[in-house]
């Protein structure tokens, strides 16, 4: 198995990775093979959401995903998400609403929220969006500014 290269459509670009161990987590492939460190490593046990990426458009935890289990899939990280219109609007909403403090949780929030908003017209209700972020921990902001940012981002992409 190990000799077959791993293929991902990473942030829209087909990429091939050689010699990826079967046990490697998608999080590590992204951070240390692709060098995309925007995806943060927090707990590695599925509890914090800092490692959230989009797999075929769905928010997924890259720390609990084996890289080979998404072979051939489209994986979008915060670097890719924030190149798109929706991601840009989300970043702007976070920035303008004071939703970024230490920032360690922020890429996870940005990816998850962008994933929930992208290609959905009309966008889901603010309540549904907030439900969608229940797995993302933030220790700094108390979530209040993040909630304001979510409402603002939703308005912006309408």
């Amino acid at each position, binding site marked *: 198995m190990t000799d077959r290269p791993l293929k991902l459509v990473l942030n829209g670009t087909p990429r091939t990775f050689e010699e990826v161990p079967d046990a490697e987590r998608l999080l590590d492939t992204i*951070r240390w093979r692709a060098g*995309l*460190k*925007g*995806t*943060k*490593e*927090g*707990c*590695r*046990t599925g*509890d*914090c959401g*800092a490692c959230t990426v989009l797999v075929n458009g769905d928010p997924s935890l890259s720390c609990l995903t084996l890289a080979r289990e998404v072979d051939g899939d489209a994986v979008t*990280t*915060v*670097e890719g998400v*924030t190149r798109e219109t929706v991601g840009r609007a*989300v*970043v*702007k909403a*976070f*920035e*303008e609403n*004071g*939703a*970024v*403090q*230490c*920032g*360690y*949780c*922020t*890429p996870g929030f*940005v990816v998850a929220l962008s994933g929930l908003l992208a290609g959905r017209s009309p966008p889901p209700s603010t309540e549904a969006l*907030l*439900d969608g*972020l*229940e*797995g*993302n*921990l*933030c*220790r*700094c*902001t*108390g*979530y*209040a*500014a*993040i*909630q304001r940012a979510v409402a603002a981002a939703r308005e912006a992409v309408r």
Partner: protein
Amino acid sequence: MRFRTDAAPKAEGAVVYAPDLEAPGMLWAALVPSPVAHGRVVRLDLEPARRQPGVVAAVGAAEAVSLLPGGTGDGAAPVFPSPEILYHGQPVAAVAAETLGAARAAARAVELEVEPLPVVSGIEEVFPEWPTRVALPHPQVVGHVHARRGDVDGAFGAADLVHSETYRTPGVHQVALEPHACLAEVSGDTWRLRSSTQTPFGLRSDLAESLGIPADRLVVEGTWVGGGFGGKGGALIEPYALVLAAAAHRPVKLALTYAEEFQLGRTTLPSIIRLDTAVKGGTVTGRRVRLLLDSGASLPGRDFAVGYSMGFLLGPYRTDTFEIEGYAVRTHKPPFGPHRAPFAPQSVFALESHVDGLARRLGVEPLEFRRRNVWKEKDRTAYDQPVGPFGLDACLAAAERTLRDWRRGLPPDHGIGVGCGFWSTNAGEGGEARLELRPDGLVIYEGEREIGNGSVVRGLPTVAEKVLGLPASAIRVAYGDTAKAPFDSGVYGSRTLAALGQAVERASRALLATLASRLGAATSPTLELRDGHVTVVSGGRRVRLATLLTPEERTVGGLVAEGKFYAPAHRLDTSFVTDGQVFPYRDFTGGAHLAEVAVDRETGHVRVVRYAAFHDVGTAVDLALVRGQVEGGVVMGLGTALSEEMRWEPTGRLGNPDLLDYRLPRLRDVPPLQVEIIEGFAGAGPWGAKGMGEPPIIPVAAAVANAIADATGTRVHELPLTPERVARALKLL
């Protein structure tokens, strides 16, 4: 509004944190944890680890001694235990290898033989009876504080009511989202460290002292900090990385797993608090405070927490007749460490629950009772310090209006609680600022990076902006390591803006003074940015800065000015202290909180329905930052109130070293939050600002506990206020 320059880069994932660090030739480190909480290392064999593929270095106590310039290091607290192990998971050795997987495998291959010794896992094992008189010296007591003022026995003897209660609080962890990580490199005789730290200079002196590395050969560069909350102050993982780097002659990266983060972190530890209040004719006439504080593996004489907590246990109330006594109890846990407003939330939970219950017993509305007794500006503290500008009563007055509002139509099984507290900005040693005014803008040189609250990226530039008149877009913060940046004590104690801000203010004024003299003007000029050029405006005259610089300044970059702020010493007449140390406080700030809860009378589950926080901030130099601190602090406090609890097993092992069983508040747990800023009670910071990093967490657990008492008539005496604890208090089981 774009108020923080770091927000967008962070949101885009473009900011490099310590866990992201990489260097050419870098090795990965793994720690070898002790399997017991107390024991003696009998045999440590690193050879099996060294034989593993990819391993470059393996070090234990013996290697640390030979590799560190200071020889033995800090004899009292060596890098690795030799031979006594003091807490479960304590690293006994460390390994560096080409990959993280190889390092972890090698760490498991280390052969370790330990002779287990009896474990003291908690205070109750040492003092099953409490309150009690403790004969000193006592083998498990590493700190003792005793003080008394006034005729306490007389007050209790003459009292017509004595209100006595015991409270318990658990260990709580900072849980910054970013785990500790650092990268160490030793080249020639220079030891270089990049680390996620709140205090680059403090870390440097800490390491220099404990490892014997001369401070001028140790260079610390702080990275962006992914949350600190007190947990990223002094040295924690850095010594291991430095020793490995010295052994391997290559850069070594060490990053903790979350489980290690929980097990090794220096955190708030459990306490038992006993409060007795004497009342005569409806007036409080005396108080006794007794505290047992778990200090973990703290060394004798290094415990400050007991003494520091005493002020919070007496509270912002007029008291001149009291007795305080506290013991720091040594147990087999990592040493007690600072955590956002160290031990204040716990102290205030106990005191404010006690005061609330007392008010109810006396038939006085609890908020009104506080207003009668809290310090006003002219009052003196329990330690006889002048209070000075202090807005707690104003906070309570504002809270009273909201309380009245909330009381209207309050549903059954709902209750409203009030909690209040004070904080005192810890200025630290001091700080220095270096500013460079260039033809195109201002650069502020800094040794510490932003930890999140905005005080560095936003607070300091705001100070310069206000003094100089330059727009925010023309001001930039540049970071340097401890070899290049001006000294500062670090980001803690809510001090950054309040203390370092003053250094920036002074440096800014010095810039203006130099410019005034060069212009021959009697008054200070102001600055503006015109078409990208810094322009000096003085008496209606506009001159480009470039024309005022000396040739040398033009080549260096610009006009340099320095400002220093070293905290004035605060003297305290401590003749009332019979043993140990109590601490003076300074620059008081107050906060009052209201919580409305709904209690499930059948299960004990508590839901916080809404929340309001009123804070005396002196002057809000930046409203958005203050709001962010209050919201963040309140929610962290809700975790302390409702769910956060480190649970050690009798073996000394932490039973819940993960986020699944150490419960933090999540987005959907959080109630609507109202923040009200009270101004007009000037602090010592620039324009009267007061530090706001810590105060907002302080009254939260108290407010929630008091709301539960309001809803049910029953008081819970132990944090956190979990459904099961509330159910027990309600006698449901």
